[in-house]
Structures are given as structure tokens and as C-alpha cells.
């Protein structure tokens, strides 16, 4: 693997410096915080997201949905500042300008029970200010074709499978050719073939909109995202490219025939050998090239298996 020169991991906690993924910023947030009762969903998040596809990784409850809701102008922060496509969502008129340029897929797609797919998209097109009937139908036809939903256009949404419903959600986000797509877990419930179709769709969107998506599928990030942000417990812990994320695990991924009981994380791969992440304490393991998933697990591994947050500060190698 080619060794990247300068990985940029880890949020410094609250020094107010934005973590540039690379200028210019499509989205810039500074000191963004949001609480729900006693739960801190976002804790002084600073970010600058470049054009292209940005993947947001993190375990459940890390603050991904809250961050995306704020970017989509659905929720407001308790503190901090946010700029989306150069507009400030705090100002009513600018908020509308953001919404005119935005495609948003919420985590849970809401729809009226009686809605058919085309009817739902037609209603969403009205909400997106495509008021001329002819134009609206052409636009609905366009996104139906893009999301490969033409065969189910006349079916009720509630009768569709979870994966197809997700595609309906993606289709509505594409209405009006938005400049920014905010997609909360777009690949949840999609089978491998549909995930591949989603990647194709994302790569071939006309106008190349900026995309921010959250996912639990690390391989989606490796496949389509130019930038990755890792959120843990409401804080940004990494920004950079997928290659740089993988590099965090450089020298910390090992394989052995037996499981090392001292290893932080270990699992048996398809070849029957054990893949370990952490230190080679026994000294009997062979180093292997890390993947993006290894890099993510290095950061979030113990969170993912229920460990405490402080115990897994990323290792010295490549982390700072």
C-alpha cells in the first residue's frame, strides 16, 4: 500500500480549529454542539467538508444523525456556527436558499400510508417548488429512472421491501438536481447488488453534487467516498481520505493461526486465520496491510464492542 504522507486524524478537543478535509468548504461547522436532555449528541464539532463524497462513520449514538439533521436544516444546534453552501441556516431567507439546493434522506423515510411511489415523489417535487405539472412529471420520471424504480412507480410504498423503500428515499433526495445531498444511511437495508447500484448512481449523478452520507458500511466509504469523517461520542476523531484512515492501522494489524488472548480485537477470516488489531504482544504474529475497516476499528473498535471511550486512544503510529 502506498504510504500517504500526512494523515490528519483526530479532533483536538475544542480548540476551535476547523479540520480541513481540503478547501473549498461546501459545509463548514465550528463549535457545533447539540444536547438532547442529558445526552450530548454533538460536542463542539469543527469541520470543513469539501466537494465530492464525504462519508460519516461512527457507532450508533455517535451524533451522525444529529449532525446531518443540522446540515439539512431540520434541527438547530444549541451552540456553534454552521455554513452550508455558503449560507447561514440561522437566517430564515438563507435557510430557504439552502433548502432549494438540498436533497435530504432522513434515517427514517416518512410517507402517508396511502402514498404510491410516483405520488410520493410528485408531492415531494411540489415541496421542492417544482410547481409546473409537466416539469414535475418529467422530474419524477427522471429520478424514477435514476433509482431504477420505474417498475414500482404505481405501487404503494408500504407494500415495498425495505431496500426498495430506501431507493424511493434516495430518489426523492435527487429531485430538482440538488447541489448538496445529505443522506442518512442510504445503504441501510440494501442487499450487496443494490449497494453496488447505489455506488454507480452516486458516481454518475449529473452535475456532481457534493454528498455527505452516514453509514455503518465501511466498505461503502472505501468504495465511493473521497473524504471520511469519524465521529465518536459527539466528537470528530478523524478527517481525511479513506487511505489515510486505513493508514491509522498501519503496523497494528496482524494475522496468526491462533487467537492472541491479549489482542484488543480479533476475528477469524475466510482463510481460517485470525486477524488481530492492536499490539503484537506475543510477537508471533505476521503484519499485514491494513484496510479502511481496520483503520476505523482502530479508532472505534472498543466503542463498537462496548468498551470505554478513553481506553482506545489511537496508537502513536500514524495517528498524530
Amino acid at each position, binding site marked *: 500500500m502506498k504510504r500517504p504522507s500526512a494523515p490528519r486524524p483526530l479532533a483536538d478537543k475544542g480548540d476551535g480549529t476547523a479540520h480541513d478535509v481540503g478547501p473549498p468548504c461546501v459545509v463548514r461547522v465550528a463549535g457545533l454542539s447539540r444536547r438532547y436532555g442529558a445526552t450530548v449528541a454533538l460536542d463542539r464539532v469543527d469541520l470543513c467538508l469539501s466537494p465530492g463524497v464525504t462519508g460519516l462513520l461512527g457507532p450508533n449514538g455517535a451524533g451522525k444523525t444529529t449532525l446531518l439533521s443540522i446540515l439539512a436544516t431540520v434541527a438547530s444546534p444549541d451552540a456553534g456556527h454552521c455554513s452550508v453552501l455558503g449560507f447561514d441556516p440561522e437566517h430564515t431567507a438563507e435557510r430557504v436558499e439552502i433548502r432549494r439546493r438540498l436533497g435530504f434522506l432522513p434515517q427514517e423515510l416518512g410517507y402517508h400510508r396511502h402514498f*404510491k411511489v410516483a*405520488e410520493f415523489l410528485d408531492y415531494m417535487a411540489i*415541496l421542492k417548488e417544482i410547481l409546473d405539472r409537466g416539469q414535475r412529471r*418529467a422530474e*419524477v420520471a427522471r429520478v424514477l429512472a435514476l433509482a431504477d424504480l420505474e417498475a414500482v*412507480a404505481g405501487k404503494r410504498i408500504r407494500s415495498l421491501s425495505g431496500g426498495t423503500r430506501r431507493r424511493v428515499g434516495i430518489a426523492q433526495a435527487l429531485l430538482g438536481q440538488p447541489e448538496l445531498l*445529505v443522506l442518512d444511511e442510504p445503504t441501510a437495508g440494501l442487499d450487496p447488488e443494490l449497494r453496488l447500484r447505489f455506488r454507480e448512481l452516486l458516481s454518475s449523478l*449529473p452535475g456532481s453534487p457534493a454528498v455527505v452520507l452516514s453509514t455503518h458500511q465501511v466498505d461503502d466509504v472505501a468504495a465511493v467516498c473521497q473524504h471520511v469523517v469519524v465521529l465518536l461520542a459527539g466528537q470528530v476523531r478523524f478527517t481525511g481520505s479513506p487511505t489515510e484512515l486505513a493508514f491509522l492501522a498501519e503496523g497494528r494489524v496482524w494475522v496468526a493461526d491462533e487467537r492472541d488472548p491479549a489482542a484488543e480485537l480479533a476475528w477469524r477470516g475466510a482463510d481460517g486465520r485470525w486477524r488481530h488489531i492492536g499490539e503484537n504482544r506475543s510477537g508471533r504474529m505476521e503484519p499485514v496491510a491494513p484496510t479502511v475497516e481496520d483503520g476505523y476499528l482502530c479508532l472505534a473498535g472498543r466503542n463498537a464492542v462496548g468498551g470505554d471511550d478513553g481506553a482506545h486512544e489511537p496508537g502513536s503510529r500514524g495517528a498524530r
Partner: protein
Amino acid sequence: MTKESEAPRVDKGSSTATWHADEQLLARYVQGDLHGALARSLEAHLPDCPQCRNGLAGLLNAARLAHNRRVVLTSASLPPPGWPERMLSAVGLPDHLARLLVLTPSLRRSWLLATVLVLGVAVGTAQVLSPLSGVRGAAVFGLTAGSAMRLLPFLVVVPLLPLAGVAAAFSRRLDPMHDLAVAAPMSGVRLFFLRAGAVLVTSLVPALFAALLLPGPSWLPAVLLLPTSAVSVMTLAASTALDPAVAAVGAGACWLALVCGLGVALGSPAVAFGYLGQIVAGIILVVGAGVLVARRGQLELGWAR
């Protein structure tokens, strides 16, 4: 996105031109996917090459046909509008407004049935009860205190109906598409007024008709109009700063306190509908409308609510 440096594919044909654009290249040109030098070079080539022009003409038709076919199929997949939507279109409302109105959460059939039911109970109560002879107090517009008491449920309930409708129209719980609507540009003041207007009309019209069925005087609907409008406008004005549901509950509580307070203080709940009540309602209406106009930019679903 298309790489502009990509070289055009060359077909060696029999025409005098040195190269011909293949079908894929022409298709990309038709779809608008060809940019920069490649597009310009094709455009420079086309006037001198009948073969490529023919190829392009064929594709143009095919692309248009495919597009038209998709639009026709999409239109066929849309269910025909129901009678409320057709009725709204018949009175000249654009189809997108009719669609937005019929999908107001508090205009569902169940909600409208509940409105009719509540009004029915209030009217029925007034019909069943006889005038209370023991009640003393000022007569308002010829309506004695005793008659006013039997109309009390109706008089109290009517102004509350649109409040409940407003609260429901903007409720995250009742609107499954709340988040999607909030993130859309239509979610601001336009959608707010559309929904609020729809709620007021669908609450007030049945209420005024129901008032005609009451045993009281025939002008009863007229005295209800101003207080009901005042309480509704107060709710909308308060919605510029508060969650609409909170605003509705607050306005409803104020209304109940006013009717009951005046009833206790002056001996008859009818006073709230008398000259004094009408003047107060008029003032609230004007002030509320002023606030509403001045702060209309703050009316929207979601965001800081």
C-alpha cells in the same frame, strides 16, 4: 462526469469525412454529457458530415421518445385526484396548491369526522337542555343568561376547534413527512399559511353551519365569528415564537379563562360574546394580525422549534 480528454471513437466509413462519431459518442452529446473540446469538435464536424447528422437525428428521436414514454408512464402511475382535490381545482386553485391542502395532516377524514362529532355533541347538549331559569346575569343581544348557559358547551368549543387543527397541522407526530417537508424550500411561510388557512376554513364552516341548528337566536354564528378568528390569529401570531402546538394550548387556555372568568365575574358566559367581548376580540384580532404580518418570516416548520 465525462472526461474531456477522452478521444472520440472513430468509425472508418465510406463518406468523404475523415472520421465519424460512433453511436455512443452521439448519444452522450444528445444527453448533454459531452463537454469542452470533444463537444466543440463534434459540432464543427457535424455540418460537413451527413452520416453523423443522420445518426444524431435518429438518436434525438429515440431519446425524446424514451423521455416522453417515461413521463407518460409516470403520469399513468399517479392516482387520479380525489373529490376534495377536484373541487379545489374546479374553483381555480392550481393543482399543486390543491395537493398541498388535501395533505394537511389535520384535514384527514378522521379529523373532519371528529370535528363534526364534537359539534354534534355541543349542538345536541344545547337542544336537550332547557333554558336554566335560576341563572341571573346580563342578557346579551337578547340572549338571556339562562339560555347562554345551555349554549355554553358550543360557545366554548367552537373557538377551540381551529386551535386543535393548527396544532395538529404542524405536529411532528401527526405528519409522517414532517422532516422531509422541513428540509424542503416550500416548508416556510407559504406552507404554514396554506395549512393554517385550510384548518380555519374546515373548522369554521362546519361550526357556523352547526350554530344555525342551535335553539338560540339566528345571529349566533355572527357573534361567534370574531372571537373564534381572534383566538385563531392569536395562535398563529404566537407560533412565530413558539411551537404551534404550545401556542394553540396557550391560546386555548386564555380563551377558557376569559369565558369562565367573565362568566363568574359578570354572571353570564354570554358576556364574552357581547359588545365588550366583541371589542376585545376585535383588538386581539388586529394586534395578532399585525404581529403575524410583521413576523411572518418566522413562521415555518422545524428548525429552531
